[in-house]
């Protein structure tokens, strides 16, 4: 990679990070909403640990994967909306007239999302620990968990970027949020898969990759080092990132071709 591309990436990454962290309307909901829903559900479903076969006696620990993954959905919307704004305001058009490389543009836009993912994972983990969560995999496990969450944020951020580049509309990107949320809830996020009683729901959760992502994160919190769950979690997060970034790169090529 040439030094020029690296310089371009650094400039756009700085812009992307500053843009995320200077907008309270991005930061506050991205931290507040997952925590709010986490709080309600953890408190309301605390009795679920009395179901025979439930893997832990702390529902707060079981549910901590919830804000970590849900926060990534906010990243998708944040990344997509920011990129769509660049298209709506003509920034992308102006940029296409410069020697700026598309790779630098894409990487730059996603760095802000990964930074947001980092902030979210640190805040959510800290809140969890304050409320009595013990990370069974220890400090190293917590670090792995943060990396997995950032990779997830990168993947969802890529999907947000694809949507932005396809539609060029921030509203359209935000409209996809409910669908992402649905896919998120139709997983093993609230109960372990083997305890889901309704057949169709268990089948959907089994085929839903989000379940494996959640179970990978959760394994570090309630089980310790579970290689199988962790591998599946990283495979899903990595696959998501691969699809998101390559899809966004192709969409960007198409968008710049039309510009």
């Amino acid at each position, binding site marked *: 990679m040439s030094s020029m591309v690296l310089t371009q990436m650094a400039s756009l990454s700085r812009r992307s990070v500053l843009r995320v962290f200077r907008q309270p309307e991005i930061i506050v909901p991205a931290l507040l909403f997952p925590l709010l829903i986490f709080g309600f*559900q953890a408190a309301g479903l605390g*009795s679920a640990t009395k179901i025979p076969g439930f893997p832990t006696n702390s529902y707060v620990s079981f549910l901590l994967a919830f804000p970590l993954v849900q926060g990534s959905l906010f990243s998708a919307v944040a990344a997509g909306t920011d990129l769509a704004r660049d298209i709506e305001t003509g920034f992308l058009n102006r940029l296409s007239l410069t020697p700026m490389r598309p790779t630098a543009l894409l990487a730059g836009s996603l760095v802000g999302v990964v930074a947001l993912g980092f902030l979210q994972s640190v805040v959510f983990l800290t809140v969890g620990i304050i409320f009595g969560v013990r990370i069974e995999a220890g400090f190293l496990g917590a670090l792995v968990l943060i990396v997995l969450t950032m990779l997830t944020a990168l993947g969802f951020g890529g999907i947000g970027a694809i949507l932005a580049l396809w539609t060029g509309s921030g509203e359209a990107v935000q409209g996809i949020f*409910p669908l992402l949320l649905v896919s998120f809830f139709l997983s093993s996020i609230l109960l372990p898969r083997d305890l889901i009683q309704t057949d169709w729901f268990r089948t959907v959760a089994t085929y839903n990759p989000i379940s494996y992502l959640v179970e990978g994160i959760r394994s570090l919190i309630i089980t310790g080092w579970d290689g199988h769950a962790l591998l599946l979690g990283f495979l899903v997060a990595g696959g998501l990132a691969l699809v998101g970034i390559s899809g966004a790169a192709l969409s960007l090529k198409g968008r710049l071709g039309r510009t």
Partner: protein
Amino acid sequence: MKSFFSVAGAVAWRGIHNFATNPALIVPSLLFPLFFLAAFAGGLSRVSNVPNFDYKAGYTAFQYVWVLLQTVAVGGAFTGFAVARDFEGGFARRLLLAAPRRGGIILGYICVALVRVSFTGGVVTVAALLAGMNVLGSGVDILGLVGLAALVNVAATLFAVGMALLLRTSQGGFLIQTPIFVATFLAPVFVPLKLLNNWIETVAYFNPVTYILETGRGFLAGNPSGVLLAFGFAAALIVVLIPWVLFGLRSAEKAG
């Protein structure tokens, strides 16, 4: 008095027409309740195996009542969004100038909200029945549940319209929706009140929505309890929120 009702009728007709002819308004108001019903009633049915969970109509019915009340409450919030949009488009200001009795505007929006939630609540009910929900209550019990849902919708609409009249911008959506969303979640959503623990038990105990919800579940199971208390709380919410919405209306009038 005639002019009061003619203003209400005109506002109601316009709002209902807008809702019925605009899929962008219909889809979001249906999507979330159906999604909550699927996720909670479908995904969490094993929660009914928790010791001392003794709701005899089953977990789908248990969750349906919460989803129904959430649907009608959020339907009120959506009406608040419509008011905010009317201000942004300039329609609301023209309406304030033209209406001889402005209180009729509030009644009109309440009618819009009731029609909206009749549709969305109906769809949610059909979905729950298709999912195998047991209805053990009699016709009178079901009327009781519908009555409670209607009162909750009116209360939520008064709150949301009052907030929208004060803010007069769609950017205030967060302030319109969040209190309604929080109030419905700070009730016994997943298990009965007696099975809640820690801070949520205390908060739910003091949350009027809890009593409305538990009575609604009683209606569906055919053994309602605390009926007077639930209707009393719902009516009290409306009585408290009428001055709030009138305050919002005066604020909008002053703003011109």
